[in-house]
C-alpha cells in the first residue's frame, strides 16, 4: 500500500491523461521518439516518465521498502551515515610478472593512496600449478603475478606491512585455504597477528564452473574447500571477509545483472546451508560474506540493482535463515567499474569507467575498484592504473557526491525500477531454489544456458547497432587498434622458476613432507582444511604441492570435453 491519498491519486491520473492528450501527443507528432522501446540489458522497458502513479503500480511503501539506512531492508544503505563517515574502500586490482617487479608497482599504489591491494595472480597460480609445471609454460606472470610459495608473498609485500592497508586481497577461488594461509603466514613474517590486519578473498568456487573457469576439484569437495575458509575465519578472524559471492563474472559472461545476482545469491545460500549443516550458527558466518555485483549496460539499472539486491539478500537471510544479527542481513557490496571499454580510442574508456564508478557510488557500494582504460589492450600501464585510482578519489572527495546518504532515494524512477529489479532477482532466485539449489542448477546446465542465451543476444544487438559503442559501431574513425601494449618480459618465467627451485633447495624437506601428510589426513576426514594448509605454507610447501595432495584425495573436475553445435 502506498501512502498516497486515493483522492489525490485519482486527480493525478486525470492530470496525467490530460497532459498526454494536450501536451505529449502534439509533441510526438513534431518530435517523434528515437525508438519505440527503451529497453535495458536485463529486458526491462524504461518508461518515458515516472510519477507517483508508478510507485502506486509497484505498491511502493516508504517504511516497508526503504526504511532508514543501517536498518532492514537496507535499501538506502548498510550504515546510517554511509560516505559521510568514510567513503568506500578504494581497491586496486593489480599484479603482473614476478614478485620483485610487482612489488615496485604495489609501492606506487600505496603512495597514490589506495586502501586495498587486490592481488591479481597468474593463471597457473589460480589453478594450482607451480611455475615449473608443464601446463604453466607461457602463462607465468601473464595475467597476474606468479606466486608459488610464501617466499613470493614476502617479496611481493616487502616494505608494505599488511596493516598499512585497510584490506589485502587475493582471488583464490579454487584453493581458499591456501590463499588465506599465505596471508596469515605473511602476517607472521611481518610480526602481525590476524587481529591487526584485514584479509578479503574472492573464494567463491561455484561460479567458476560456469564462468571464469579456474576450478580444480569436483563441485562438492570444492564447496567444502570454500566454506572451510569461512568457518575458520568465523572462529579465528571474524573481522575478515573470506568469501565474496560473485555476480560480476556471471553477468560479464552473459547472464544479465538480475539473473547474475540471483545465481550469486543461490551460490551463497548453498555455502551458508553447508556451514549451518556443519554446526555453525548463521549469525557467526553470514556477516563474513560480501557480494560482487555488476551492471555494466545501464547507468540507472546499476544504481537500482544495488539497492534491490540489498533488499533481496536481507529478506533471504531473515526469512530462510532466521538471521538476527543486522550484520548478517546487511549486504556488503564489492564492485568493479567498467563497461563497454573499447580497443579503439581507448582514452574514451576513462569516461566509461568514471560513469560506472559513479553509478556504483550512487548505489551505495562498500568496496570499489576501477578498470584501467588500457586494460582491453593487456596488463594496465602505470599511468592507467594511477588514473583509475584518481577517478575514485575525485568521486569521493570533490563535487559533494558523498555528502548525503542515498541521494537518489525517493525518485519516482529509481524507486519503481528498484522494486521491479527486486522482483526479478527474487523470482530468479526462487527458480534456482525450485531446481534444487545452486549445485543442481549448475549440473542441470541451467546457469550456462542463461549465460549463453544472453551472450548471443548481446552480440546480436551489438552487430545490429542497437548496442552502441562510440568510436566502434558509431562514428568510427580509427580502423586499426593501437600499438604499444604493456609487455611482460618472457625472461620472467625463467626467473620465477629459478626462485622456486632455490626455495625448494633451502627449505626443510622433512617439515614439508609432514605438513603435506597432515593436509592429506585432514582432507580425507571432515576437519577444517585451513590449519594443515597453514602448516604447509609456513614450511614453504608450494601451492602446486598442496593442490596435488588435494587432487589425489578429491579428484579433478572434468569439464565437458567438446560438443558439436550443428547448424540448421
Amino acid at each position: 500500500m502506498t501512502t498516497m491519498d486515493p483522492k489525490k491519486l485519482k486527480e493525478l491520473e486525470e492530470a496525467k491523461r490530460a497532459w498526454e492528450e494536450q501536451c505529449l501527443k502534439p509533441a510526438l507528432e513534431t518530435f517523434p521518439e528515437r525508438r519505440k522501446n527503451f529497453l535495458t540489458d536485463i529486458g526491462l522497458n524504461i518508461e518515458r516518465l515516472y510519477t507517483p502513479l508508478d510507485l502506486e503500480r509497484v505498491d511502493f511503501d516508504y517504511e516497508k521498502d526503504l526504511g532508514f539506512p543501517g536498518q532492514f531492508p537496507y535499501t538506502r544503505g548498510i550504515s546510517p551515515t554511509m560516505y559521510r563517515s568514510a567513503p568506500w574502500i578504494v581497491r586496486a586490482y593489480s599484479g603482473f610478472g614476478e614478485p620483485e617487479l610487482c612489488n615496485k608497482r604495489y609501492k606506487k599504489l600505496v603512495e597514490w593512496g589506495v586502501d586495498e591491494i587486490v592481488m591479481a595472480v597468474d593463471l597457473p597460480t589460480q589453478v594450482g600449478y607451480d611455475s615449473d609445471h608443464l601446463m604453466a609454460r607461457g602463462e607465468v606472470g601473464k595475467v597476474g603475478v606468479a606466486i608459488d610459495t610464501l617466499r613470493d608473498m614476502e617479496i611481493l609485500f616487502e616494505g608494505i606491512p599488511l596493516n598499512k592497508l585497510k584490506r589485502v586481497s587475493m582471488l583464490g577461488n579454487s584453493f581458499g585455504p591456501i590463499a588465506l594461509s599465505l596471508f596469515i603466514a605473511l602476517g607472521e613474517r611481518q610480526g602481525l597477528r590476524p587481529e591487526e590486519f584485514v584479509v578479503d578473498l574472492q573464494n567463491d568456487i561455484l561460479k567458476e564452473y560456469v564462468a571464469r573457469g579456474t576450478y580444480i576439484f569436483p563441485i562438492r569437495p570444492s564447496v567444502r574447500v570454500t566454506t572451510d575458509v569461512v568457518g575458520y575465519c568465523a572462529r579465528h578472524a571474524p573481522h575478515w571477509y573470506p568469501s565474496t559471492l560473485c555476480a560480476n563474472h556471471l553477468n560479464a559472461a552473459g547472464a544479465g545483472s538480475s539473473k547474475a545476482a540471483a545465481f550469486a545469491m543461490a551460490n551463497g545460500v548453498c555455502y551458508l546451508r553447508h556451514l549451518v549443516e556443519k554446526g555453525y550458527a548463521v549469525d557467526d558466518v553470514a556477516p563474513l560474506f560480501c557480494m560482487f555485483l555488476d551492471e555494466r549496460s545501464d547507468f540507472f539499472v546499476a544504481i537500482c540493482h544495488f539497492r534491490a539486491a540489498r533488499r533481496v539478500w536481507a529478506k533471504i537471510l531473515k526469512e530462510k535463515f532466521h538471521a538476527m544479527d543486522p550484520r548478517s542481513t546487511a549486504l556488503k557490496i564489492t564492485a568493479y567499474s567498467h563497461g563497454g571499454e573499447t580497443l579503439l580510442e581507448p582514452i574514451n574508456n576513462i569516461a566509461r569507467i568514471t560513469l560506472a564508478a559513479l553509478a556504483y557510488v550512487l548505489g551505495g557500494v562498500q568496496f570499489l575498484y576501477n578498470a584501467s582504460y588500457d586494460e582491453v589492450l593487456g596488463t594496465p600501464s602505470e599511468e592507467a592504473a594511477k588514473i583509475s585510482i584518481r577517478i575514485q578519489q575525485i568521486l569521493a572527495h570533490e563535487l559533494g557526491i558523498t555528502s548525503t546518504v542515498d541521494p537518489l532515494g525517493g525518485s519516482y524512477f529509481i524507486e519503481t525500477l528498484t522494486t521491479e529489479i527486486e522482483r526479478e532477482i527474487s523470482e530468479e532466485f526462487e527458480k534456482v531454489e525450485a531446481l534444487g539449489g545452486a549445485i543442481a542448477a549448475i549440473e542441470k546446465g541451467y546457469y550456462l544456458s542463461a549465460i549463453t542465451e544472453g551472450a548471443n543476444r548481446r552480440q546480436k544487438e551489438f552487430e545490429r547497432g542497437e548496442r552502441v559503442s562510440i568510436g566502434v559501431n558509431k562514428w568510427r574513425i580509427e580502423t586499426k587498434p593501437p600499438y604499444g601494449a604493456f609487455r611482460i618480459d618472457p625472461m620472467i618465467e625463467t626467473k620465477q622458476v629459478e626462485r622456486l627451485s632455490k626455495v625448494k633447495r633451502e627449505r626443510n624437506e622433512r617439515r614439508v613432507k609432514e605438513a603435506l601428510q597432515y593436509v592429506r589426513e585432514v582432507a580425507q576426514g571432515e576437519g577444517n582444511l585451513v590449519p594443515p594448509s597453514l602448516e604447509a605454507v609456513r614450511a614453504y610447501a608450494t601451492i602446486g604441492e598442496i593442490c596435488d595432495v588435494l587432487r589425489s584425495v578429491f579428484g579433478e573436475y572434468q569439464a565437458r570435453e567438446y560438443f558439436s553445435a550443428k547448424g540448421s
Partner: protein
Amino acid sequence: MRRKPRILIGKVGLDGHEVGARVVAKALADAGMEVIYTGLRQTPEMIVRTAIEEGVDLIGISILSGSHMTFFPEILRLLKAYQAEDIPFIAGGIIPAEDVERLKEMGVKEIFPPETPTSEIVRFVKGLLAERP
C-alpha cells in the same frame, strides 16, 4: 554433395574466459557449419590432435591470457610436424597489434580483435573454405 564444413573452436592454455569462443562457435553453427568446441585448458598438442582426428577444415583459437606467442607458434609447428599445415588456423582475443603482424607472418591466417562482428568472422571463414581444392 559436399559435407558441411567442420570447424574446431578451441581454448588453449589456462585461460577460462570462454564467452567469445562460445559466441563465435554459435555464429558459425548458425551459418551452417559443424562446430566442435574443445572446452577449456587444451594444450597445442591436444588442439592439433583433435583437429586431425575430427578431420576439421579450420582451427579457430580464442585467447585472452596473453600467452599467444607461446602457443600459436607451437600450434603451427605441430601442424607442420603432423603434415596437417593445410588446415588453416585463425584466432581471436586480446592480442596486441604488433603480435598480430608477427603471427600472420608465421602463418596464422587471420586474427580478430575484440569488437569484431561475428558476421565478419563468418564471411572470412566462408571465403577461406571456398578456396579449398
